[in-house]
């Protein structure tokens, strides 16, 4: 089976600082991949390279290639807008727009030229259901999203991402701002979504990585120290540094 994402010799710089060093990793189709590692090791930078969100940072520079379905996403002919439609992203802090719940989910559809009211409402409902939020909000779709709880807001952001039908979903510590119950709900949701989407999730929580992902990559100081099947990486790590990190013997 071909890989969905192939990253080869990726180096990322912000101005003078060399943030990611020689990253090589392949990401499988319809599967969850976790990225773990201590704070500041470059996990966010890495996933933001995959949907070219780093392009918004003026000092960003990179070399190496990132292939999505075999095509270089940094090719000059590639349109960032199309890429981001295919590679959706959920952020660490829930960031719904200051609009109604309905409008939040419908936003991406409007952006991509869907105008038919019926299609939009159908799609909004589907997405909210897929994000396991429908039952909680179906009676108050016109309410401002700002009035939802943190966990609901995060699921709304996932629904918003799903609505534009991406192929890959990037999640940057989606649970770090949430309480345990909301976290469980999001994890259940990830389990449900993994059949249809390729998911890459950054997490600080190693239990979470073992619970949700098939594969895991361990980042340290901008390098991938070890990557592979999650079970193997946690049960019998090859690298000493991985072992130190997962056993908590690490600063």
């Amino acid at each position, binding site marked *: 089976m071909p890989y969905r994402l192939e990253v080869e010799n990726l180096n990322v710089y912000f101005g003078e600082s060399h943030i990611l060093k020689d990253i090589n990793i392949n990401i499988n189709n319809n599967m969850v991949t976790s990225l773990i590692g201590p704070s500041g090791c470059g996990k966010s930078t890495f996933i933001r390279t995959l949907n070219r969100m780093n392009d918004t940072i003026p000092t960003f520079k990179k070399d190496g290639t990132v292939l999505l379905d075999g095509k270089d996403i940094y090719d000059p002919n590639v*349109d960032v807008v199309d890429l981001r439609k295919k590679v959706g992203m959920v952020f660490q802090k829930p960031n719904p727009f200051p609009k109604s719940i309905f409008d939040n989910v419908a936003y991406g559809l409007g952006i991509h*030229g869907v105008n038919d009211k019926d299609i939009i409402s159908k799609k909004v409902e589907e997405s909210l259901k897929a994000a396991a939020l429908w039952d909680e909000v179906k009676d108050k779709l016109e309410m401002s999203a700002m009035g939802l709880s943190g966990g609901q807001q995060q699921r709304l952001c996932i629904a918003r991402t799903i609505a534009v039908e991406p192929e890959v979903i990037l999640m940057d510590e989606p649970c770090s701002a949430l309480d345990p119950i909301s976290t469980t709900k999001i994890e259940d949701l990830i389990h449900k979504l993994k059949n249809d989407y390729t998911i890459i999730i950054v997490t600080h929580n190693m239990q979470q990585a073992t619970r949700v992902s098939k594969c895991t990559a361990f980042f340290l100081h901008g390098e991938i120290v070890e990557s592979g099947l999650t079970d193997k990486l946690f049960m019998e790590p090859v690298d000493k540094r991985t072992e130190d990190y997962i056993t908590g013997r690490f600063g």
Partner: protein
Amino acid sequence: MNRIISPKNSQKIMETIFWASGIFTVFLLILVIGYILVNGLPVINLNFIFGQPIDNGAAGGILPFIISTIYVTFVALVVATPLGVGGAVYLAEYAGENALVKAIRFGSEILASIPSIVFGLFGFAFFVVYLDFGFSVLSGGLTLALMAMPTILRTAEVAIESVPKSYSEGSMALGASKWQTISQVILPAAVPGIITGVILGMARAVEETAAILYTVGAAIQAPVSIFDPGQPLPLHLYTLATEGISMPFAYGTAAVLVILILVITIVTNTLVDRYTKKMMGR
């Protein structure tokens, strides 16, 4: 996706429009300032700046008008600075967030937005007639003080509020009284910001015309006493231009005014820049 203009194209179009509007704004400034300076600078020489006017300003120099401007602005600042800074200290350090504070804020907001000609009306009715100061530097200066005060107050308040809390806590912990803390720790740290406020107030006083139209008089001689009438530069420019006394001199006077304001702006910016750099450095 059957849209008339694709998102990509509308992005390109809008970006062009935004750039154009930015460049057009710069062009407007260059047009106004450039035109005034190109026509006014040739008129300016030592004689023009330091000479006495002849024939109501059709020839000679503009020294009395420059003196009037300085005099009136000085009076305005002497009155407005303590009021503005005092008010700022009160708002930032003493008052809580109550109805009175809201009223003070709204009051200074109105004060900042009242049309200048209404200040002129008030200055005439109150200072010139009621207090019987006559058409004088004092009446004009006091009227301008009312206009400069809200500017000073707002800028000073921001400056005082941006002094780190740790400064005053440090001082209080040493047993200093509130006023000792304010006068010896907070105000010195806020001085650059307060000076910026005073300079901005000064700019407002220097450029104002309508408010002094019927308060300061229209004397050709330089005022000596505070009760003498004067004719600050903007007023003089108005007279020159509308009564057709001398176009070249009108350009010259306008150029002097523009240069004055540019200098004031540049000085403020350098000050603010240095101040922020210093704060960042700490």
